[in-house]
Protein backbone atom coordinates (compact mmCIF):
# COMPACT_ATOMS: atom_id res chain seq x y z
CA UNK A 1 0.00 0.00 0.00
CA UNK A 2 2.96 2.27 0.72
CA UNK A 3 4.21 1.76 -2.84
CA UNK A 4 0.75 2.52 -4.09
CA UNK A 5 0.65 5.83 -2.18
CA UNK A 6 4.10 6.70 -3.51
CA UNK A 7 2.87 6.08 -7.06
CA UNK A 8 -0.16 8.30 -6.42
CA UNK A 9 2.00 11.17 -5.13
CA UNK A 10 4.36 10.83 -8.09
CA UNK A 11 1.38 10.72 -10.50
CA UNK A 12 -0.08 13.87 -8.92
CA UNK A 13 3.20 15.76 -9.32
CA UNK A 14 3.56 14.52 -12.88
CA UNK A 15 0.01 15.53 -13.86
CA UNK A 16 0.60 19.04 -12.51
CA UNK A 17 3.67 19.33 -14.75
CA UNK A 18 1.74 17.89 -17.66
CA UNK A 19 -1.02 20.45 -17.13
CA UNK A 20 1.56 23.21 -17.55
CA UNK A 21 2.58 21.63 -20.86
CA UNK A 22 5.88 20.17 -19.68
CA UNK A 23 7.08 17.08 -21.59
CA UNK A 24 8.90 16.13 -18.39
CA UNK A 25 5.48 15.62 -16.77
CA UNK A 26 4.56 13.13 -19.46
CA UNK A 27 7.86 11.28 -19.04
CA UNK A 28 7.32 11.04 -15.29
CA UNK A 29 3.78 9.79 -15.76
CA UNK A 30 4.93 7.17 -18.29
CA UNK A 31 7.62 5.99 -15.88
CA UNK A 32 5.39 5.84 -12.84
CA UNK A 33 2.14 4.44 -14.30
CA UNK A 34 3.34 2.88 -17.56
CA UNK A 35 4.76 -0.44 -16.28
CA UNK A 36 1.67 -1.43 -14.28
CA UNK A 37 -0.76 -0.36 -16.95
CA UNK A 38 1.26 -2.22 -19.59
CA UNK A 39 1.36 -5.36 -17.46
CA UNK A 40 -2.40 -5.06 -16.86
CA UNK A 41 -3.24 -4.52 -20.54
CA UNK A 42 -0.87 -7.26 -21.72
CA UNK A 43 -2.52 -9.83 -19.48
CA UNK A 44 -6.00 -8.52 -20.21
CA UNK A 45 -5.57 -8.55 -23.99
CA UNK A 46 -3.17 -11.48 -24.25
CA UNK A 47 -1.08 -9.60 -26.79
CA UNK A 48 1.87 -7.27 -26.31
CA UNK A 49 1.14 -5.43 -29.59
CA UNK A 50 -2.47 -4.74 -28.60
CA UNK A 51 -1.33 -3.72 -25.13
CA UNK A 52 1.12 -1.24 -26.67
CA UNK A 53 -1.66 0.26 -28.80
CA UNK A 54 -4.03 0.45 -25.85
CA UNK A 55 -1.37 2.05 -23.66
CA UNK A 56 -0.58 4.62 -26.35
CA UNK A 57 -4.28 5.45 -26.68
CA UNK A 58 -4.45 5.70 -22.88
CA UNK A 59 -1.65 8.26 -22.74
CA UNK A 60 -3.08 10.19 -25.69
CA UNK A 61 -6.35 10.46 -23.74
CA UNK A 62 -4.47 11.40 -20.57
CA UNK A 63 -2.56 14.16 -22.40
CA UNK A 64 -5.77 15.41 -24.00
CA UNK A 65 -7.73 15.51 -20.74
CA UNK A 66 -4.95 16.36 -18.28
CA UNK A 67 -6.16 19.94 -18.00
CA UNK A 68 -9.56 18.72 -16.79
CA UNK A 69 -8.05 16.60 -14.04
CA UNK A 70 -7.85 18.16 -10.60
CA UNK A 71 -5.02 16.36 -8.87
CA UNK A 72 -6.15 17.73 -5.51
CA UNK A 73 -9.48 15.94 -5.79
CA UNK A 74 -9.64 12.22 -6.41
CA UNK A 75 -6.97 9.83 -7.47
CA UNK A 76 -4.87 10.53 -10.57
CA UNK A 77 -3.84 6.89 -10.59
CA UNK A 78 -7.47 5.70 -10.48
CA UNK A 79 -8.40 8.11 -13.26
CA UNK A 80 -5.54 6.89 -15.46
CA UNK A 81 -6.29 3.24 -14.71
CA UNK A 82 -9.92 3.76 -15.66
CA UNK A 83 -8.83 5.18 -19.01
CA UNK A 84 -6.53 2.19 -19.54
CA UNK A 85 -9.34 -0.20 -18.64
CA UNK A 86 -11.70 1.50 -21.10
CA UNK A 87 -9.18 1.33 -23.94
CA UNK A 88 -8.53 -2.32 -23.12
CA UNK A 89 -12.26 -3.03 -23.21
CA UNK A 90 -12.56 -1.19 -26.51
CA UNK A 91 -9.99 -3.50 -28.10
CA UNK A 92 -11.73 -6.54 -26.64
CA UNK A 93 -15.04 -5.36 -28.10
CA UNK A 94 -13.44 -5.00 -31.52
CA UNK A 95 -12.37 -8.57 -31.24
CA UNK A 96 -15.86 -9.75 -30.37
CA UNK A 97 -16.64 -10.16 -34.05
CA UNK A 98 -14.42 -13.23 -33.88
CA UNK A 99 -17.01 -14.55 -31.39
CA UNK A 100 -14.49 -16.79 -29.77
CA UNK A 101 -15.92 -19.22 -27.35
CA UNK A 102 -14.35 -19.73 -23.97
CA UNK A 103 -12.28 -22.86 -24.41
CA UNK A 104 -12.81 -25.54 -21.85
CA UNK A 105 -9.81 -27.32 -20.37
CA UNK A 106 -8.57 -29.82 -22.97
CA UNK A 107 -7.71 -32.81 -20.85
CA UNK A 108 -9.77 -34.53 -18.22
CA UNK A 109 -10.28 -32.46 -15.07
CA UNK A 110 -7.47 -32.88 -12.58
CA UNK A 111 -7.99 -33.92 -9.04
CA UNK A 112 -9.06 -30.68 -7.35
CA UNK A 113 -6.90 -31.38 -4.37
CA UNK A 114 -3.82 -31.82 -6.51
CA UNK A 115 -1.29 -29.06 -5.88
CA UNK A 116 0.96 -27.52 -8.50
CA UNK A 117 4.36 -29.15 -8.49
CA UNK A 118 6.17 -26.29 -10.24
CA UNK A 119 6.39 -22.51 -10.20
CA UNK A 120 4.23 -20.77 -12.77
CA UNK A 121 5.63 -18.50 -15.44
CA UNK A 122 3.92 -15.37 -16.68
CA UNK A 123 3.23 -17.17 -19.97
CA UNK A 124 1.36 -19.90 -18.08
CA UNK A 125 -0.80 -17.36 -16.29
CA UNK A 126 -1.43 -15.31 -19.45
CA UNK A 127 -2.32 -18.46 -21.37
CA UNK A 128 -4.74 -19.52 -18.66
CA UNK A 129 -6.21 -16.01 -18.52
CA UNK A 130 -7.29 -16.35 -22.16
CA UNK A 131 -9.90 -18.80 -20.96
CA UNK A 132 -11.25 -16.63 -18.16
CA UNK A 133 -14.25 -14.45 -19.00
CA UNK A 134 -13.37 -10.78 -19.18
CA UNK A 135 -15.80 -9.81 -16.39
CA UNK A 136 -13.82 -12.04 -14.04
CA UNK A 137 -10.31 -11.38 -15.27
CA UNK A 138 -10.80 -7.59 -15.23
CA UNK A 139 -11.13 -7.27 -11.41
CA UNK A 140 -8.51 -9.98 -10.91
CA UNK A 141 -5.95 -8.09 -13.02
CA UNK A 142 -6.90 -4.76 -11.49
CA UNK A 143 -6.00 -6.28 -8.15
CA UNK A 144 -2.87 -8.17 -9.23
CA UNK A 145 -1.33 -5.78 -11.77
CA UNK A 146 -2.63 -2.40 -10.67
CA UNK A 147 -2.63 -3.21 -6.94
CA UNK A 148 -6.04 -1.63 -6.40
CA UNK A 149 -8.08 -2.43 -3.32
CA UNK A 150 -11.46 -4.13 -3.66
CA UNK A 151 -13.10 -0.84 -2.80
CA UNK A 152 -11.21 1.00 -5.55
CA UNK A 153 -12.05 -1.72 -8.07
CA UNK A 154 -15.69 -1.59 -7.00
CA UNK A 155 -15.70 2.17 -7.54
CA UNK A 156 -14.05 1.96 -10.97
CA UNK A 157 -16.30 -0.83 -12.19
CA UNK A 158 -19.58 0.24 -10.55
CA UNK A 159 -19.90 -2.95 -8.52
CA UNK A 160 -20.20 -3.79 -4.86
CA UNK A 161 -17.13 -4.81 -2.86
CA UNK A 162 -18.63 -8.26 -2.26
CA UNK A 163 -19.21 -8.71 -5.96
CA UNK A 164 -15.59 -7.77 -6.68
CA UNK A 165 -14.40 -10.24 -4.03
CA UNK A 166 -16.56 -12.96 -5.53
CA UNK A 167 -15.36 -12.29 -9.07
CA UNK A 168 -11.70 -12.30 -8.08
CA UNK A 169 -12.23 -15.57 -6.24
CA UNK A 170 -14.02 -17.07 -9.24
CA UNK A 171 -11.22 -15.94 -11.58
CA UNK A 172 -8.66 -17.62 -9.33
CA UNK A 173 -10.72 -20.75 -9.22
CA UNK A 174 -10.86 -20.92 -13.02
CA UNK A 175 -7.17 -20.09 -13.37
CA UNK A 176 -6.37 -22.87 -10.98
CA UNK A 177 -8.18 -25.31 -13.23
CA UNK A 178 -6.65 -24.00 -16.43
CA UNK A 179 -3.02 -23.82 -15.31
CA UNK A 180 -3.15 -27.49 -14.41
CA UNK A 181 -4.57 -28.66 -17.72
Amino acid sequence: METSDKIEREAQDAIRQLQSGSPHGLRRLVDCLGPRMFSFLKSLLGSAADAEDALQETFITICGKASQQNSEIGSVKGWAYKIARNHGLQILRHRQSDSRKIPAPQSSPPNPAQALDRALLLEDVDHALESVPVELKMPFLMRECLELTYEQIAELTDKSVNQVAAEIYRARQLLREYVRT
Partner: protein
Amino acid sequence: MSTLNPHEHDGPCATFQMALSAAFDGEKTAGDFAHPSALDGHGNSCDDCKAFRQILECLHQPLLKSRDMPIPSTLRDRLNSIPLTRKPGPTLLEQMMKTLTESGIFQPAIAMLLLVALVGAALSLRNFGNQTPPILKHSQKAAMNANLLTLQATGEAAFSLPSSGNLRLWGGPAELTLDEFSSNNVALTMKSGRVCCNWEARGSVPFRLAFGASQLEIVGTTWRLSLEPTGNAQLEVAEGKVRVSPVGKLVGKPVGKPVGTLVAKSIDVSGLQKVRISAAGEVSPPEAFNPFVDPQLGIPPSQIWIGER
Protein backbone atom coordinates in the same frame (compact mmCIF):
# COMPACT_ATOMS: atom_id res chain seq x y z
CA MET B 1 -23.20 -11.68 -13.93
CA SER B 2 -24.82 -12.39 -10.62
CA THR B 3 -22.93 -12.08 -7.38
CA LEU B 4 -21.38 -15.36 -6.43
CA ASN B 5 -22.56 -16.50 -3.08
CA PRO B 6 -20.26 -19.23 -1.80
CA HIS B 7 -22.91 -20.50 0.59
CA GLU B 8 -25.07 -21.52 -2.34
CA HIS B 9 -22.37 -23.73 -3.82
CA ASP B 10 -20.22 -26.33 -2.22
CA GLY B 11 -20.35 -25.47 1.44
CA PRO B 12 -17.30 -24.87 3.59
CA CYS B 13 -14.74 -25.14 0.74
CA ALA B 14 -16.21 -22.27 -1.27
CA THR B 15 -16.73 -20.16 1.86
CA PHE B 16 -13.21 -20.80 3.07
CA GLN B 17 -11.56 -20.28 -0.31
CA MET B 18 -13.38 -17.04 -0.99
CA ALA B 19 -12.36 -15.72 2.41
CA LEU B 20 -8.83 -16.94 1.73
CA SER B 21 -8.75 -15.14 -1.60
CA ALA B 22 -9.85 -11.86 0.00
CA ALA B 23 -7.42 -12.27 2.91
CA PHE B 24 -4.59 -12.92 0.44
CA ASP B 25 -5.32 -9.51 -1.08
CA GLY B 26 -5.15 -7.89 2.35
CA GLU B 27 -8.88 -7.27 2.41
CA LYS B 28 -10.91 -7.36 5.56
CA THR B 29 -13.46 -9.98 4.69
CA ALA B 30 -16.82 -8.36 4.93
CA GLY B 31 -20.48 -9.15 4.66
CA ASP B 32 -21.50 -12.65 3.91
CA PHE B 33 -18.24 -14.55 4.03
CA ALA B 34 -16.29 -15.48 7.11
CA HIS B 35 -12.69 -14.73 8.01
CA PRO B 36 -10.47 -17.72 7.11
CA SER B 37 -9.27 -18.04 10.69
CA ALA B 38 -12.83 -18.93 11.67
CA LEU B 39 -12.58 -21.95 9.40
CA ASP B 40 -9.00 -22.96 10.18
CA GLY B 41 -10.13 -26.38 11.22
CA HIS B 42 -11.56 -26.97 7.78
CA GLY B 43 -8.56 -25.41 6.02
CA ASN B 44 -6.09 -27.66 7.77
CA SER B 45 -7.94 -30.84 7.02
CA CYS B 46 -9.13 -30.16 3.46
CA ASP B 47 -6.63 -30.98 0.67
CA ASP B 48 -8.55 -28.93 -1.88
CA CYS B 49 -8.38 -25.80 0.26
CA LYS B 50 -4.68 -26.37 0.99
CA ALA B 51 -4.06 -26.57 -2.76
CA PHE B 52 -6.10 -23.39 -3.31
CA ARG B 53 -4.00 -21.57 -0.72
CA GLN B 54 -0.90 -22.58 -2.67
CA ILE B 55 -2.28 -21.49 -6.03
CA LEU B 56 -2.89 -17.96 -4.79
CA GLU B 57 0.83 -17.38 -4.38
CA CYS B 58 1.69 -19.25 -7.58
CA LEU B 59 -0.59 -16.98 -9.62
CA HIS B 60 0.56 -13.84 -7.84
CA GLN B 61 4.32 -14.18 -8.29
CA PRO B 62 4.58 -13.98 -12.12
CA LEU B 63 2.14 -11.03 -12.24
CA LEU B 64 4.04 -9.26 -9.48
CA LYS B 65 7.28 -9.57 -11.49
CA SER B 66 5.51 -8.42 -14.64
CA ARG B 67 4.10 -5.23 -13.13
CA ASP B 68 7.51 -4.16 -11.87
CA MET B 69 9.22 -4.66 -15.21
CA PRO B 70 9.98 -1.49 -17.17
CA ILE B 71 8.06 -1.05 -20.40
CA PRO B 72 9.96 -1.71 -23.66
CA SER B 73 12.16 1.24 -24.63
CA THR B 74 10.55 1.55 -28.09
CA LEU B 75 7.12 1.86 -26.47
CA ARG B 76 8.46 4.33 -23.94
CA ASP B 77 9.82 6.49 -26.78
CA ARG B 78 6.45 6.32 -28.55
CA LEU B 79 4.62 7.41 -25.42
CA ASN B 80 7.05 10.20 -24.66
CA SER B 81 6.64 11.58 -28.18
CA ILE B 82 2.88 12.09 -27.81
CA PRO B 83 2.26 15.74 -28.68
CA LEU B 84 1.07 17.82 -25.74
CA THR B 85 -1.97 20.00 -26.11
CA ARG B 86 -0.51 23.04 -24.32
CA LYS B 87 2.72 24.88 -24.99
CA PRO B 88 5.27 24.92 -22.18
CA GLY B 89 5.28 28.48 -20.88
CA PRO B 90 5.27 31.72 -22.86
CA THR B 91 6.86 31.83 -26.30
CA LEU B 92 9.93 33.92 -27.00
CA LEU B 93 7.73 36.45 -28.79
CA GLU B 94 5.39 36.67 -25.81
CA GLN B 95 8.35 37.20 -23.49
CA MET B 96 9.81 39.94 -25.72
CA MET B 97 6.45 41.69 -25.97
CA LYS B 98 6.10 41.62 -22.21
CA THR B 99 9.61 43.03 -21.72
CA LEU B 100 9.03 45.77 -24.28
CA THR B 101 5.70 46.76 -22.78
CA GLU B 102 7.06 46.79 -19.27
CA SER B 103 10.20 48.74 -20.19
CA GLY B 104 8.10 51.44 -21.91
CA ILE B 105 9.87 51.31 -25.28
CA PHE B 106 7.81 53.37 -27.71
CA GLN B 107 5.16 52.23 -30.14
CA PRO B 108 7.15 51.86 -33.42
CA ALA B 109 9.22 49.06 -31.96
CA ILE B 110 6.08 47.19 -30.92
CA ALA B 111 4.50 47.77 -34.33
CA MET B 112 7.63 46.42 -36.03
CA LEU B 113 7.59 43.39 -33.80
CA LEU B 114 3.91 42.76 -34.53
CA LEU B 115 4.65 42.84 -38.25
CA VAL B 116 7.41 40.27 -37.83
CA ALA B 117 5.06 38.13 -35.74
CA LEU B 118 2.33 38.31 -38.38
CA VAL B 119 4.71 37.20 -41.15
CA GLY B 120 5.94 34.40 -38.91
CA ALA B 121 2.39 33.28 -38.14
CA ALA B 122 1.48 33.25 -41.84
CA LEU B 123 4.52 31.13 -42.64
CA SER B 124 3.81 28.74 -39.80
CA LEU B 125 0.19 28.37 -40.95
CA ARG B 126 1.44 27.45 -44.42
CA ASN B 127 3.57 24.72 -42.92
CA PHE B 128 1.02 23.73 -40.29
CA GLY B 129 0.98 20.12 -41.38
CA ASN B 130 4.69 19.70 -40.94
CA GLN B 131 4.46 20.87 -37.34
CA THR B 132 2.27 17.96 -36.29
CA PRO B 133 4.36 14.84 -36.55
CA PRO B 134 2.29 11.71 -37.14
CA ILE B 135 2.25 9.23 -34.31
CA LEU B 136 3.72 6.05 -35.73
CA LYS B 137 2.11 3.15 -33.92
CA HIS B 138 3.63 0.23 -35.78
CA SER B 139 6.27 -0.05 -38.36
CA GLN B 140 7.19 -3.38 -39.81
CA LYS B 141 9.32 -3.58 -42.94
CA ALA B 142 8.59 0.09 -43.46
CA ALA B 143 10.86 3.10 -43.13
CA MET B 144 9.87 6.64 -42.30
CA ASN B 145 12.39 9.26 -43.40
CA ALA B 146 11.21 12.81 -42.68
CA ASN B 147 7.68 12.52 -44.10
CA LEU B 148 8.51 9.90 -46.75
CA LEU B 149 7.20 6.42 -46.01
CA THR B 150 8.78 3.50 -47.85
CA LEU B 151 6.75 0.35 -47.49
CA GLN B 152 7.98 -3.09 -48.48
CA ALA B 153 5.81 -5.81 -50.01
CA THR B 154 5.13 -7.47 -46.66
CA GLY B 155 5.48 -4.26 -44.67
CA GLU B 156 2.93 -2.44 -42.58
CA ALA B 157 2.75 0.97 -40.97
CA ALA B 158 0.04 2.28 -38.68
CA PHE B 159 -0.47 5.86 -37.56
CA SER B 160 -2.87 7.39 -35.11
CA LEU B 161 -4.27 10.82 -34.42
CA PRO B 162 -4.91 12.22 -30.95
CA SER B 163 -8.55 12.56 -32.02
CA SER B 164 -8.76 8.78 -32.46
CA GLY B 165 -8.14 8.54 -36.18
CA ASN B 166 -6.29 5.43 -37.28
CA LEU B 167 -4.51 4.87 -40.56
CA ARG B 168 -3.06 1.50 -41.53
CA LEU B 169 -1.02 1.03 -44.68
CA TRP B 170 0.18 -2.33 -45.95
CA GLY B 171 0.59 -4.43 -49.08
CA GLY B 172 3.45 -2.50 -50.72
CA PRO B 173 5.93 -1.95 -52.20
CA ALA B 174 5.07 1.74 -52.20
CA GLU B 175 6.45 5.19 -51.56
CA LEU B 176 4.20 7.82 -50.01
CA THR B 177 4.67 11.16 -48.38
CA LEU B 178 2.63 12.20 -45.37
CA ASP B 179 2.14 15.86 -46.27
CA GLU B 180 -0.16 16.51 -43.36
CA PHE B 181 -1.39 14.33 -40.54
CA SER B 182 -3.38 16.27 -38.00
CA SER B 183 -6.84 16.26 -36.47
CA ASN B 184 -7.83 18.93 -39.02
CA ASN B 185 -6.57 17.30 -42.16
CA VAL B 186 -4.85 14.20 -43.46
CA ALA B 187 -3.05 14.58 -46.77
CA LEU B 188 -0.87 11.98 -48.43
CA THR B 189 0.82 11.82 -51.80
CA MET B 190 1.51 8.49 -53.42
CA LYS B 191 4.77 8.51 -55.35
CA SER B 192 4.88 4.97 -56.68
CA GLY B 193 3.90 1.37 -56.15
CA ARG B 194 0.83 -0.21 -54.63
CA VAL B 195 -0.69 0.16 -51.20
CA CYS B 196 -3.64 -1.12 -49.21
CA CYS B 197 -5.14 1.30 -46.74
CA ASN B 198 -7.58 1.27 -43.88
CA TRP B 199 -8.71 4.60 -42.46
CA GLU B 200 -11.03 5.08 -39.52
CA ALA B 201 -11.70 8.34 -37.73
CA ARG B 202 -14.11 9.43 -35.08
CA GLY B 203 -15.85 12.52 -36.45
CA SER B 204 -15.03 13.90 -39.86
CA VAL B 205 -11.35 14.39 -40.49
CA PRO B 206 -10.81 15.22 -44.18
CA PHE B 207 -8.51 12.66 -45.77
CA ARG B 208 -7.04 13.24 -49.22
CA LEU B 209 -4.54 11.21 -51.17
CA ALA B 210 -2.97 12.72 -54.28
CA PHE B 211 -1.26 10.82 -57.06
CA GLY B 212 -0.48 11.75 -60.65
CA ALA B 213 -3.26 14.01 -61.91
CA SER B 214 -5.85 12.77 -59.45
CA GLN B 215 -6.87 13.08 -55.87
CA LEU B 216 -8.83 10.70 -53.69
CA GLU B 217 -11.16 11.95 -50.99
CA ILE B 218 -11.58 9.17 -48.53
CA VAL B 219 -14.40 8.50 -46.12
CA GLY B 220 -13.51 5.85 -43.48
CA THR B 221 -12.77 2.90 -45.69
CA THR B 222 -10.54 0.08 -46.87
CA TRP B 223 -9.10 0.21 -50.36
CA ARG B 224 -6.07 -0.54 -52.51
CA LEU B 225 -4.42 1.78 -54.99
CA SER B 226 -1.94 0.48 -57.56
CA LEU B 227 0.13 2.91 -59.62
CA GLU B 228 1.59 1.62 -62.87
CA PRO B 229 4.84 2.94 -64.37
CA THR B 230 2.76 4.37 -67.25
CA GLY B 231 1.04 6.70 -64.82
CA ASN B 232 -2.28 4.83 -64.96
CA ALA B 233 -3.73 3.58 -61.70
CA GLN B 234 -6.26 1.09 -60.39
CA LEU B 235 -8.38 1.76 -57.33
CA GLU B 236 -10.15 -1.15 -55.65
CA VAL B 237 -12.51 -0.26 -52.81
CA ALA B 238 -13.25 -3.04 -50.34
CA GLU B 239 -15.55 -1.09 -48.06
CA GLY B 240 -16.73 2.46 -47.46
CA LYS B 241 -16.51 5.09 -50.17
CA VAL B 242 -13.76 6.87 -52.10
CA ARG B 243 -14.39 9.97 -54.21
CA VAL B 244 -11.98 10.31 -57.13
CA SER B 245 -11.44 13.91 -58.21
CA PRO B 246 -9.16 14.62 -61.14
CA VAL B 247 -6.82 17.55 -60.52
CA GLY B 248 -4.30 19.14 -62.86
CA LYS B 249 -5.57 18.50 -66.39
CA LEU B 250 -9.31 18.91 -66.51
CA VAL B 251 -10.89 16.03 -68.36
CA GLY B 252 -14.22 14.25 -68.45
CA LYS B 253 -17.64 15.09 -69.76
CA PRO B 254 -18.64 18.74 -69.86
CA VAL B 255 -21.37 19.32 -67.28
CA GLY B 256 -23.54 22.41 -67.66
CA LYS B 257 -20.80 24.39 -69.36
CA PRO B 258 -20.42 25.66 -72.90
CA VAL B 259 -18.91 23.22 -75.38
CA GLY B 260 -15.16 23.33 -75.27
CA THR B 261 -14.84 23.87 -71.52
CA LEU B 262 -13.82 20.70 -69.78
CA VAL B 263 -14.88 20.29 -66.19
CA ALA B 264 -13.35 17.99 -63.64
CA LYS B 265 -15.84 15.35 -62.67
CA SER B 266 -15.71 13.58 -59.36
CA ILE B 267 -16.74 9.97 -59.23
CA ASP B 268 -17.76 8.11 -56.09
CA VAL B 269 -16.44 4.57 -55.89
CA SER B 270 -18.32 2.51 -53.31
CA GLY B 271 -17.29 -0.67 -51.58
CA LEU B 272 -17.04 -3.77 -53.80
CA GLN B 273 -16.21 -1.60 -56.82
CA LYS B 274 -13.03 -0.83 -58.74
CA VAL B 275 -12.08 1.80 -61.29
CA ARG B 276 -9.13 2.56 -63.53
CA ILE B 277 -7.74 6.07 -63.52
CA SER B 278 -5.67 7.25 -66.47
CA ALA B 279 -2.50 9.29 -66.13
CA ALA B 280 -4.53 12.31 -67.23
CA GLY B 281 -7.05 11.72 -64.45
CA GLU B 282 -9.82 10.14 -66.51
CA VAL B 283 -11.86 7.66 -64.48
CA SER B 284 -13.42 4.53 -66.00
CA PRO B 285 -16.94 3.43 -65.05
CA PRO B 286 -16.94 1.35 -61.83
CA GLU B 287 -16.75 -2.43 -62.14
CA ALA B 288 -17.49 -5.10 -59.56
CA PHE B 289 -14.68 -5.98 -57.16
CA ASN B 290 -14.59 -8.94 -54.81
CA PRO B 291 -12.34 -8.31 -51.80
CA PHE B 292 -13.35 -11.48 -49.97
CA VAL B 293 -11.07 -13.73 -51.97
CA ASP B 294 -8.25 -11.20 -51.94
CA PRO B 295 -5.44 -12.36 -49.65
CA GLN B 296 -4.13 -8.82 -49.14
CA LEU B 297 -7.43 -7.31 -48.07
CA GLY B 298 -8.77 -10.42 -46.37
CA ILE B 299 -12.05 -9.02 -45.07
CA PRO B 300 -14.80 -11.44 -44.02
CA PRO B 301 -18.15 -10.64 -45.72
CA SER B 302 -19.83 -10.15 -42.32
CA GLN B 303 -17.55 -7.20 -41.52
CA ILE B 304 -18.03 -5.26 -44.75
CA TRP B 305 -19.83 -1.94 -44.76
CA ILE B 306 -20.58 0.06 -47.88
CA GLY B 307 -20.98 3.82 -48.29
CA GLU B 308 -20.65 6.19 -45.36
CA ARG B 309 -20.70 4.77 -41.86
